[in-house]
């Protein structure tokens, strides 16, 4: 069992890579979210290993993991928990919901009604849950990785900007390359059968996740401490302030970045520097993370949308102006 936080990042990456082909950037963003305690929203079409990635990460770091598939008929108590009457004792006892975990995968979060989304997002913000008259702190660390399907918007409730702002990062997943996809198929072909006493069935990638974690919470905590020691220069902060300010003054943007976005840039940049083995942040961290930190926080003006402009185009303009 390894307890060396210096090897935390490569060990976790290696373990995830055993079951997931490619998606290095997503793994990097998940590591950043894990190291900073920020929440992550993944946008991607079904079938590109979102759930597998989160599952593999949770197992690799020995985190308590819950998965909730959001549906339109869910209630806040389905996530947070509720008070139940214990008939044996005649007293109410608290049933804690799936939110009481280290890593919560909120699958297709936009399919739930707004009150369920709000309940979860409150828990994300305050890191505690109130059931009945009592408040319960959530486990530490607590991280939500939510997913959204960018297509099939019928019957969904789009998260408003104020709630999207709670997610430190919003990463857009892409399809694997041809080589990577070929490797996925090759691995699947060689997986074989999973035998049980009752019978057998073909193995899936989930069966290939090794049971033994490569790191523990202690390593994660030490890694988080190291991230907090990553040096952020005054010049880098000037870059961040200038970048956030440009999103507020661009003529095509109706709603620019909040101060929370600036904080997220700095925090994420620190974690990224740690992931890349640096003890200081550099402008590249800002430029690499800008899309994931900012794109879900800005709203284009009506005129810009009417002209067919995309948020990514406008953001790139800002980055070009900055650089």
């Amino acid at each position, binding site marked *: 069992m390894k307890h060396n936080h210096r090897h935390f990042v490569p060990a976790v990456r290696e373990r995830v890579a055993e079951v997931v082909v490619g998606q290095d950037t997503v793994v990097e963003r998940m590591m950043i979210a894990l190291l900073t305690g920020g929440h992550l929203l993944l946008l991607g079409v079904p079938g590109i290993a979102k759930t597998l990635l989160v599952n593999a990460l949770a197992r690799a770091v020995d985190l308590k993991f819950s998965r909730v598939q959001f549906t339109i008929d869910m209630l806040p108590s389905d996530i947070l928990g509720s008070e139940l009457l214990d008939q044996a004792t005649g007293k109410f006892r608290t049933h804690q919901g799936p939110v009481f975990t280290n890593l919560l995968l909120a699958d297709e979060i936009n399919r739930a009604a707004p009150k369920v989304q709000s309940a979860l997002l409150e828990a994300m913000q305050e890191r505690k849950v109130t059931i009945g008259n009592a408040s319960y702190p959530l486990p530490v660390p607590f991280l939500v990785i939510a997913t959204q399907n960018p297509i099939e918007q019928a019957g969904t409730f789009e998260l408003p900007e104020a709630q999207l702002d709670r997610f430190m990062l919003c990463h857009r997943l892409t399809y694997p390359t041809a080589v990577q996809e070929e490797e996925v198929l090759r691995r699947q072909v060689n997986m074989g059968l999973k035998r049980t006493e009752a019978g057998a069935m073909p193995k899936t990638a989930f069966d290939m996740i090794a049971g033994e974690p490569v790191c523990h919470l202690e390593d994660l905590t030490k890694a988080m401490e190291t991230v907090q020691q990553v*040096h952020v*220069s*005054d*010049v*880098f902060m*000037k*870059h961040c302030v*200038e970048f956030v300010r440009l999103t507020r003054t661009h003529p095509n943007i109706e709603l620019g970045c909040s101060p929370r976005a600036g904080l997220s840039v700095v925090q994420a940049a620190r974690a990224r520097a740690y992931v890349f083995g640096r*003890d*200081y*942040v*550099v*402008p*590249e961290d800002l*430029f*690499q993370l*800008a*899309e994931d930190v900012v794109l879900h926080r800005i709203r284009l003006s009506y005129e810009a949308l009417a002209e067919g402009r995309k948020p990514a185009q406008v953001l*790139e303009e800002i*980055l*070009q102006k*900055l*650089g």
Partner: protein
Amino acid sequence: MTCRCYLWLPALLFLAANSGFSQATNGAGAGHAIGIEGRIMLDLPRPDYRLLPLDDRTELILRIESVSATADHRQRYNFSYIGMEPGDYQLSDYLVYPDGSRPGELGTFRIRVAAVLPESHSGQLTSFTPGQFPFLGGYRVFLGSLGAAWVGGIGIFIWSYRKKRLVVVPVTRLPESSFAQRMGPLVEAAAAGKLSLDGQAQLERLFIGFWREKLNLPDQRMADALVYLRGHAQAGEFLRALEHWLHQRAGASAAEVSALLEPYRHLPAPAALTGGAT
């Protein structure tokens, strides 16, 4: 004038009706107004007179209301009539025997239908004098004004929103300063150790832009361009040295900064630079 006409016309009709009644009673052909039903009672020798068929040009409509025998073996005919034209109408012209032959014994008895208006009347019931077209006011003037306002309004609207004639004002635009020109004062200040934090941030961004331009990467995404720059031999080495100065906790000494910036001092143009920091 019109009110007076309404007053005397019913009175005239009332008098005419009364005169017809007296004519019938007397069996005489006294005057009776046109359009007003009159009655005549006559004793005639035979009981079988018939009325001539009417047509649409008949000037007198005559009807036999009743026939009854009198004590002197004559027949009392009760006629009613309506005259369409004023004049005297001979009764024998309107009665025939059952075989269609004209009766000769009726003599020259006439039914008189009097005109409502006097003979000398011109036929004009009310006096009418066409007025002059008013200079201001009136329906036509109102419509004319409305049309003129509508046409004029459209004209004003089109004129107001016409494409303004472009007035070409000669503007002397200064050529956009190059990265090298913009970096110059900042580099000098940094070499002298007098560059502020804002200046340092600006200088770093200008260096990134400078190298993007130098390596022809302006159309590349910034994130990709930076990866490329860091991988480039000269640019990568220079940017890492710059990061060491600006972003590492220890920073760089004045001598290191001076050496780093030396190739970028007094740059005439970006193309003049042949290499990065060494």
